[in-house]
């Protein structure tokens, strides 16, 4: 067993040569044998061996158990060798460590041998060291206790000045790349990299080792004097060094573009030399007649970290390079090998990426587009795929958008004829990207027809895309309605809630399309089998606008109702709930069918339905229809008001699906539109959402579902919805994540208000409800963030809500349900006891996993001192008596300030009550003044507070002034309350 390394033999079932066909060869079976030296060295010899040479019982394929048994036996053997009294020599150690490694790579767990591997690192024998390092690279995790020993061994090798050993050590650092290693070697590796006497091969390893450390622990890599020397490696004689260094510079430049600016001119110079070189110039760096393709790609990639060079000479030289690359694409190939064309085109595609990135040279952009157009019909599938992909980027440039559009027929054809789904997917993406007003109808029609046969895996995305395009480029909304109904018909299962919410939003917001929508859904519902989503849309729209088509005897109220009701029994609970809401709306729209509907509601199957939601709706709607007068009915069941314009939730969803890129330009235009339309509506949105998210159980219809909104006159339905959010609440064992920036934007709105939406972004909405209960329950309770997530699919893991510790507040958290089902909300109750008056409000942190990364949101929770008020009623006499008692100068704080809002007595009153004090009427001799009184409850003291607010109505309307006076028994309280309240008017 001397020098033949494979002391391990392995079972393989089928073996054949790589790059040669299997055919004509006999598959043979090898066995898993220990310590048997294979008696042959070539395949031919091996093939001649009868299978019976080996031990049949260990045949892998025959029995998995046999394999496991064999391996366990081997592991026991190795373990006993390692534990044995006799010290193992280096060779045996190496042999066993290597076996362990092999067993691990077969897929079995290995939990020993690390120490022996570490011992091998300090061996003087190269092979032992090498195996030690391999074991460490593959098997050691960063929290190992051995890391210090390993680092020591690495340190020794790095300082050995033996390039082979140094490379081994550097490879190991690059492979493990742990933080501990970064800490230990962050200073040493750059030094090796730029030292004048370092061998080229070591430089290469050091560069990429540093790249890996910089990726895993960027904070530990000190920038310094070495950075400028790294840039100059771009000029190195040795192309291997340049190749490795370029990768490092790309990574560093992405982080500190300014420090590496000088790399641009060097990269352009280098690139220029490569593209103009004859194919033999670069010797072994020429790959299938293409000069240094890897390096060229990297250089072009580096240039994409920067805008076009400002220096005209450099810019000109770069343009020449790019032109040369484009020209070469037109030359006849120098070889028929696919490697030649791949390497050449790799450079070409990277050059096109750079052209798109610069987006400044119309000629180059159009040339790039034409080149890609040729590839669209290339016989290589790979090239067609990449051409479609790159063209997507070109479509977003103003210079090349038109040029891209000329290829529409080819792309549509690709959609129809490509055999590979990933290529068809790219075609869909490109159609989406090239769509504009001029071709929207054609593209939407093509996508719809493709949808009928599309692969299931991409249907949902196509549905979203069609929905977005139909909305964005709808000139007349009847087309839009038709398109969406078609979508539901063709791919109803893939139409997510966002899509049908959106069509309802649009129909409700646009008078001109309502009649048409009602007529169309009515007709679509006639189909004997229609998708449940259509029933939802139909129910909603007929419930709102059924009256618009009721004049036609073919769609009389009763027929409409019967049509809807015929679907009722086939639908799921949420849809039935929606239909019940539609029915009650019918009662208002069509008094003549009231009896029929009441009958339906009164049926046992409704009133005693096992589902609580359906039962409750039936009962409540029935009662409502019986006892309410026509006027009240008309008010309660009034038509939905227009929805505030906001970013389409569909678009948000698509963005989540696709990352960014292809949808970004659309997103921008959407943003413009939504800000134009609504700016002023923001306030309403925030207020109305509260009803939906923060008090679901008290809402008439519960669930915070669309149906609830149907009755709740101003709640947009899209805000709360089904979300498959898993929310874990681990408030106790929470790692405190330092807040990056604390969101305070809504803070002051809650000073005089206890309920509302505290925070809202695309992912979640946090509502807040606070309540101060009586004296003994010292503090606040019922602060519950209702986290509802709009775009459900991508919020996957835990979410954690916690309140940071606070010196003056005793925060007690009631454990909340750790798992929240789709559509539900997380409720978290904090009981807060005030120990002493305070200024700084606590911070709420919300953690959740979204799309693979942890999201942290920190919000200043509006728990202000005045939340601990208990109002006190008192007479005028009592008031002024106490006012005088609190006459010490430090007890009074007074502030005169300009009104921010117009003076409205009722609003002011509401604010003072909301602030927490009692509003005392008829106390102040001047009727236009406001006075209030209350007691702040803290654990240690109770602070009586009196306040007086004097508006100066004489002043001009443009600069109305207030004077606010606070007197309390504690100066800090007076000051804080005055600051808080004066901000509110």
């Amino acid at each position, binding site marked *: 067993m*001397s*020098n033949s390394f*494979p002391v*391990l*033999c*392995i079972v*393989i079932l*089928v*073996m*054949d*040569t*790589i*790059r040669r066909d299997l055919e004509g060869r006999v598959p043979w079976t090898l066995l898993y044998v220990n310590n048997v030296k294979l008696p042959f060295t070539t*395949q031919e010899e*091996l093939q001649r061996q009868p299978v019976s040479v080996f031990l049949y019982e260990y045949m892998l394929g025959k029995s998995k158990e046999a394999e496991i048994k064999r391996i366990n036996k081997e592991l026991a053997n190795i373990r006993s060798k390692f534990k044995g009294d006799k010290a193992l020599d280096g*060779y045996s150690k190496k042999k066993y460590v*290597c076996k362990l*490694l092999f067993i691990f*790579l077969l*897929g079995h767990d290995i939990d020993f041998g690390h120490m022996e591997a570490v011992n091998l690192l300090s061996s*003087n*024998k*190269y*092979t032992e060291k*090498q195996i030690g390092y*391999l074991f460490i*690279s*593959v098997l050691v995790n*960063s929290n190992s206790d051995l890391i210090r020993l390993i680092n020591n061994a690495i340190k020794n090798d790095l300082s050995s000045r033996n390039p*082979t050993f140094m490379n081994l050590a550097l*490879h190991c650092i690059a492979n493990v*790349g742990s933080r501990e290693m970064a800490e230990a070697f962050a200073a040493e590796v750059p030094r090796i990299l730029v030292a004048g006497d370092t061998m080229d*091969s070591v430089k290469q*390893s050091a560069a*990429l080792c540093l790249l*890996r450390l910089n990726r*895993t622990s960027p904070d530990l890599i000190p920038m310094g004097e070495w950075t400028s020397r790294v840039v100059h490696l771009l000029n190195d004689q040795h192309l*291997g060094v340049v*190749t*490795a260094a370029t*990768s490092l510079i790309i990574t560093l430049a992405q982080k500190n573009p300014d420090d590496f600016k000088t790399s641009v001119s060097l990269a352009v110079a280098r690139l220029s030399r490569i593209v103009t070189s004859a194919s033999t110039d670069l010797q*072994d760096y020429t*790959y299938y007649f293409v000069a*240094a393709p*890897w390096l060229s*790609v990297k250089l072009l990639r580096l240039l*994409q970290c920067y805008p076009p060079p400002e220096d005209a000479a450099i810019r000109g030289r770069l343009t020449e390079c790019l032109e040369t690359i484009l020209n070469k694409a037109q030359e006849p190939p120098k070889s028929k090998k696919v490697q030649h064309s*791949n*390497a050449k085109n*790799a*450079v070409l595609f*990277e050059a096109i990426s750079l052209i798109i990135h610069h987006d400044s040279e119309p000629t180059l952009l159009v040339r790039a587009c034409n080149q890609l157009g040729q590839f669209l019909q290339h016989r290589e*599938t790979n090239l*067609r*795929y*990449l051409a479609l992909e790159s063209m997507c980027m070109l479509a977003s440039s103003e210079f090349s958008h038109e040029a891209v559009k000329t290829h529409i027929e080819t792309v549509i054809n690709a959609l129809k004829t490509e055999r*590979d789904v*990933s290529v068809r997917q790219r075609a869909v993406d490109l159609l989406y990207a090239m769509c504009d007003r001029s071709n929207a109808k054609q593209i939407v029609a093509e996508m719809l027809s493709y949808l009928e046969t599309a692969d299931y895996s991409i249907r949902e995305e196509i549905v979203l895309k069609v929905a977005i395009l139909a909305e964005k480029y709808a000139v007349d909304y009847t087309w839009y309605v038709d398109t969406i109904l078609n979508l539901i018909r063709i791919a109803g299962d893939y139409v997510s809630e966002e899509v049908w919410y959106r069509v309802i939003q649009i129909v409700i917001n646009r008078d001109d399309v309502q009649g048409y929508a009602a007529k169309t859904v009515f007709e679509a519902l006639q189909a004997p089998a229609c998708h449940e989503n259509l029933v939802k849309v139909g129910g909603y729209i007929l419930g709102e606008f059924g009256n618009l088509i009721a004049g036609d005897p073919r769609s009389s109220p009763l027929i409409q109702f019967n049509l809807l009701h015929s679907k009722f029994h086939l639908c799921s609970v949420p849809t039935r709930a929606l239909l019940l809401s539609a029915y009650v709306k019918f009662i208002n729209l069509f008094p003549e069918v009231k009896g029929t509907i009441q009958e339906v509601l009164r049926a046992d199957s409704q009133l005693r339905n096992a589902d609580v939601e359906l039962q409750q709706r039936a009962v409540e709607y029935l009662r409502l229809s019986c006892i309410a007068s026509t006027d009240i009915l008309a008010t309660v069941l009034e038509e939905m008001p227009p929805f505030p314009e906001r970013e389409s939730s569909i678009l948000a969803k698509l963005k989540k699906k696709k*990352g960014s890129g292809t949808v970004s330009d659309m997103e921008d235009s959407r943003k413009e539109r939504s800000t134009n339309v609504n700016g002023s509506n923001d306030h309403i949105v925030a207020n109305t959402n509260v009803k939906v998210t923060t008090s679901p159980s008290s809402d008439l219809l519960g669930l915070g579902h669309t149906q609830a909104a149907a009755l709740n006159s101003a709640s947009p339905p899209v805000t709360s919805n089904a979300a498959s959010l898993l929310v874990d609440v681990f408030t106790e064992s929470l790692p405190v994540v330092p807040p990056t920036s604390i969101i305070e934007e809504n803070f002051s709105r809650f000073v005089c208000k206890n309920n509302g939406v505290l925070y809202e972004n695309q992912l979640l909405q946090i509502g807040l409800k606070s309540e101060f209960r009586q004296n003994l329950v010292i503090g606040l309770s019922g602060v519950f963030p209702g986290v509802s997530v709009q775009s459900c699919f991508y919020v996957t893991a835990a979410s954690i809500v916690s309140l940071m510790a606070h010196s003056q507040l005793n925060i007690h958290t009631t454990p909340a349900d750790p798992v929240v089902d789709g559509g539900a909300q997380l409720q978290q109750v904090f009981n807060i006891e005030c120990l002493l008056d305070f200024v700084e409000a606590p911070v709420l942190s919300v953690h959740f996993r979204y799309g*693979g990364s942890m999201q942290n949101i920190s919000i200043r929770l509006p728990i202000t001192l005045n939340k601990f008020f208990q109002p006190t009623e008192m007479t005028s006499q009592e008031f002024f008596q106490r006012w005088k008692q609190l006459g010490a100068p430090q007890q009074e704080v007074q502030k005169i300030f300009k009104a921010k809002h117009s003076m409205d007595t009722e609003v002011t009153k509401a604010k003072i009550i909301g602030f927490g004090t009692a509003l005392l009427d008829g106390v102040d001799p001047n009727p236009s003044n406001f006075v209030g009184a209350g007691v702040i409850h803290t654990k240690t003291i109770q602070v009586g507070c009196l306040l007086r607010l004097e508006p100066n109505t004489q002043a001009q309307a443009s600069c109305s002034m207030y004077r606010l006076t606070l007197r309390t028994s504690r100066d800090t309280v007076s000051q804080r309350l005055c600051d808080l309240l004066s901000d509110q008017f």
Partner: protein
Amino acid sequence: MQFMLLFSRQGKLRLQKWYVPLSDKEKKKITRELVQTVLARKPKMCSFLEWRDLKIVYKRYASLYFCCAIEDQDNELITLEIIHRYVELLDKYFGSVCELDIIFNFEKAYFILDEFLLGGEAQETSKKNVLKAIEQADLLQESQTEDWGGLANDEIL
């Protein structure tokens, strides 16, 4: 590049190289999923596919699949040629490489890969230079194995 996997047509993993830190559990999961996905593809399909938020570039050489996961901005075609160059290196080193070579000499396959790619980036693209480095190491090995069994080897190098 985030990782490279070599697996057989039977789905047996032959070589794995990870350039991003992942737990063993995640690695196993990714491997399982990816092997399944790639094996399910038909011969004439394109060599690229989107998978999670990564791009997968793969190519089949006889019974072995070479599969790389790259990031959004990375170049697919050049990755395909990285695979090819690695195969060439193996081929040159082993002389008509076959799956068995990679199993028997898995450590060599790893060493060659480390000389060629480091940290997920091409380190040395010249075939000669990579092989030179490996051969030098082999020379060291040869000279040492002759010494094996003798005294402590202080005189190495």
